[in-house]
């Protein structure tokens, strides 16, 4: 009985902590606007980032050289995106109202991936400039 109670309470609190943790990571990227360069590269010029753009943006992020300091946050947000996708799929049968919230959160994840892509492109350019300067 006690173990069952602890199990149920822990699952509920785990979800709450995990969602808040991911939102805390996403919070920093919300303030950053996506550059024209990222919009152009990812084909989202003149329109908002969509909830379904996340996998494509992460693929583009992975094509860029690693900065070495953003892997953890990309993985955490990736897990969060997966969780949201699962909730969206399940809730469409059980609680239809939650769909709008998951959609908004998934847009936040896509925006985060866009910001990560922007940083990596800048990093690649810096690397290239440095290599050119070293050669000359």
């Amino acid at each position: 009985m006690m173990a069952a109670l602890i199990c149920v309470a822990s699952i509920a609190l785990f979800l709450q902590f995990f969602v808040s943790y991911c939102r805390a990571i996403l919070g920093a990227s919300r303030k950053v606007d996506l550059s024209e360069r990222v919009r152009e590269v990812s084909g989202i010029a003149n329109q908002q980032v969509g909830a379904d753009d996340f996998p494509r943006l992460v693929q583009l992020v992975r094509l860029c050289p690693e900065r070495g300091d953003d892997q953890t946050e990309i993985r955490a947000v990736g897990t969060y995106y997966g969780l949201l996708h699962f909730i969206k799929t399940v809730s469409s049968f059980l609680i239809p109202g939650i769909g709008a919230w998951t959609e908004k959160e998934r847009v936040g994840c896509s925006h985060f991936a866009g910001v990560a892509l922007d940083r990596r492109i800048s990093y690649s350019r810096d690397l290239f400039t440095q290599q050119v300067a070293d050669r000359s």
Partner: protein
Amino acid sequence: MQLGPFDYALWLVGFLVEIGVVVCLVHKKDVFRYLSLTIYMLCAAFVTVGQYYSVDRFGFTSPQYFYYYYYTESLLTILLFWTVIQFYQQTFREMNVSSYIRGAAVLLLLLTGLFSYAVVHENRSHLTTKFVVELGQNLYFVGVVLTYLLWGAILKLRETRTRLIQLVLALGVYFSATACTYALRNLFPSLQPFVLRWVPPIMGVWLPIAWAYTFAKVSEDARLATARLVVRAR
């Protein structure tokens, strides 16, 4: 049961990241600000080395490793409560209630030990074996409750320090996932060899990675509106 490459990789990564957190704190000159956390990470690294030695010397299924694992886990959890208390003190620092927080935490810890003992007292035939698992489950759950209360206080007081928020949330994820694993183990012992045995080591790596990330990437001055973090039903 033999350990595979993934077990050893988790061990190695866990040890390196635990040391990494300490190095990061030393580098940023934050050791005294987060003294309990630094000590916890150092102790966790030593325990990891001890676990490796214990498995190497006595074997993964030996009673020596079993008791070493559960008793050091319980001691580390108690040490982690000290870190939680320090987070409480940081949150309530302007209210001068440090002595009350310390008193309440010690009382809660004693009650947990007594409760665990009372629960197992009736199963005297396997007292020691059952006691360590029961104590672990209850200690982690007390950790979940303490962290949740702290999170509630952070929201109520509109705490905006991003670093503190991320440290507390990472701790909450760790405590709740581990408490849930222990509880599931008590409910369904057959799940232990296949699924549940992976969760504590993964969570053991999660906590130092999340903390290392926070210390490396989030400055002490960074601020965040907590209202954005709460999920509200619409």
